[in-house]
């Protein structure tokens, strides 16, 4: 091994140590939500005895004790900060985490496998907040999330539009001229189809954009790259070969911030879901209430009701708060016209992106 290779390897190990510590801190913050007293590894002689049996000749038990003590102290300090646990779907670096970082600036961001894990986790109190995508400006509604909004009881307390900025990422050792395969979520690959064709790159579908970046960093497959967010480049120590490689005009995804309790303040945008009986003019009658009250609708979407095939639920976003008198009156009149109305919440509108 050449001296510079040894040096590189040491740097890589240091990085991995920190990533593991970050993961440990996240788990500690999560376990606190279960209100169980954790065992203190410094006091835990069993654990120390087990570590000693590892027979690590370069790691002395006094050093182990000192290191664990430092880690435990830092964990306690973090717990005292009382950060909000914000769950998102995907691996670290997913666009959901990009949204979570904007919506919850000083949070702890917890990755979940599925959207339903985010919803159930917030409902059960394992997380304080959830961040989920509802619609993409090019691809339309995220049906799974919209379905979960219908069937769970969480409140919407915020929104953010995240501009999707796809980056071509590769490990530092990869020569861009040698890249042949590009791993990413099928939707991201589809949005960069022309870029891939221009550079004669083969699209390889992967379960997640951030997951592809993580795999690249861990396994370093030959001649491979990933399409993911620039946050992934930071988190997984990857090089950004090219930013903004999507073909069309840049698209954005709207994320909602979910909590168990509604937003404490008035808010200036409101989301509801409702269903109407199968009768001529019923949907029109509901929409007319908003038109007559001069309330501007910002989103109308319909989705088949899974519990009731042949019928639809309607998603409505509009300007104004449920605490406004005009809005309150419209919502009250709606109760008579609709089969059911589900109030998701009033929250501050995201004015940053259009």
């Amino acid at each position: 091994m050449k001296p510079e290779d040894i040096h590189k390897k040491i740097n890589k190990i240091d990085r991995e140590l920190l990533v593991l510590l970050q993961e440990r801190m996240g788990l500690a913050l999560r376990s606190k939500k279960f209100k169980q007293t954790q065992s203190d590894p410094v006091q835990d002689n069993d654990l120390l005895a087990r570590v000693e049996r590892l027979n690590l000749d370069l790691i002395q038990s006094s050093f182990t004790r000192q290191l664990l003590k430092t880690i435990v102290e830092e964990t306690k300090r973090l717990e005292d900060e009382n950060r909000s646990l914000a769950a998102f779907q995907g691996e670290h670096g997913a666009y959901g985490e990009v949204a979570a970082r904007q919506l919850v600036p000083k949070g702890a961001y917890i990755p979940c496998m599925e959207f339903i894990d985010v919803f159930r986790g917030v409902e059960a109190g394992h997380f304080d907040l959830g961040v989920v995508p509802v619609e993409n400006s090019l691809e339309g509604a995220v049906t799974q999330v919209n379905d979960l909004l219908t069937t769970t009881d969480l409140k919407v307390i915020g929104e953010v539009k995240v501009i999707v900025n796809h980056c071509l990422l590769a490990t530092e050792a990869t020569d861009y001229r040698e890249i042949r395969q590009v791993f990413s979520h099928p939707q991201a690959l589809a949005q960069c189809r022309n870029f891939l064709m221009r550079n004669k790159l083969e699209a390889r579908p992967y379960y997640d954009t951030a997951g592809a970046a993580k795999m690249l960093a861990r396994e370093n497959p030959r001649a491979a790259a990933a399409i993911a967010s620039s946050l992934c480049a930071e988190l997984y120590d990857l090089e950004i070969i090219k930013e903004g490689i999507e073909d069309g005009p840049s698209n954005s995804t709207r994320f909602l911030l979910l909590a168990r309790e509604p937003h404490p303040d008035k808010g200036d945008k409101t989301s509801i879901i409702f269903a109407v009986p199968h009768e001529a003019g019923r949907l029109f009658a509901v929409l007319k209430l908003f038109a007559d009250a001069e309330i501007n609708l910002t989103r109308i979407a319909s989705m088949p009701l899974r519990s009731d095939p042949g019928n639809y639920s309607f998603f409505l976003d509009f300007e104004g708060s449920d605490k406004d008198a005009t809005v309150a009156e419209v919502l009250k009149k709606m109760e008579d016209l609709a089969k059911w109305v589900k109030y998701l919440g009033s929250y501050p509108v995201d004015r940053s992106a259009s």
Partner: protein
Amino acid sequence: MKNLKLASQETEQRTIVNVSGIEIGRDFVVIAGPCSVESEAQILDTARAVKAAGADMLRGGAFKPRTSPYAFQGLGIEGLKILEKAKRETGLPIVTEVVDPRDVSWVAEFADVLQIGTRNMQNFSLLKEVGRAGRPVLLKRGMYSTLEEWLNCAEYVLSEGNPDVILCERGIRTFETYTRNTLDLSAIPAIKELSHLPIIIDPTHSTGRISLIGSMSLAAVAAGADGMMVEVHPKPEEALCDADQALTPAIFSNIMTRLRPLKSFLNDLPPQ
């Protein structure tokens, strides 16, 4: 010139190459910037300065074909990212050289115009590759090449389906040693007779002397060139290449103030 099916004058009307709204072949287009991309600060400073002086596009080399293999070879893709950043800030389109056929599609992702340098004029595999890259090509004249050889190289690019070729006269080798090369000003009207393609001049590499660049720029305007490409560096004495022929932003700005009135004066002359 019987093999010039696409580049010769008879076939069609004059080509106008549109680069983000800048029309080469209609206006007098000025491309300015350093020989090579050295750092973000250097490129951003230059981009702001040349834009303020009235330049239309930014040049800068990320891949450098150098006479010596030990000379600075360029920052590569890092240099392209810096140029892209300068474009985002100033809006100036980017002209940059490509030297390796394997790099062409990647350089095309960052650049608005692909430059083929004098040493690569007859690199036919490179010409075919840029012919397929979907970007305008700025083709410099080989320093030992005749006009016919040059136009045949343009033909290579055109025959791959890329109609946007800009020719650039950058001086040819003669027995004169006071100047680095000899600027062939007669190439401008000659090319206009022979071809429909736009032609610009490079007064930097052709003279190699700062003191001659201003006069040659004005001469190019008078001879009917469609533009010029000139090297400007915020601190020429610190440049990593071509240090003794890069203009300071102040001298460049002075040339620009003399050049525009001459152009409008020429526009008012009665036709030949």
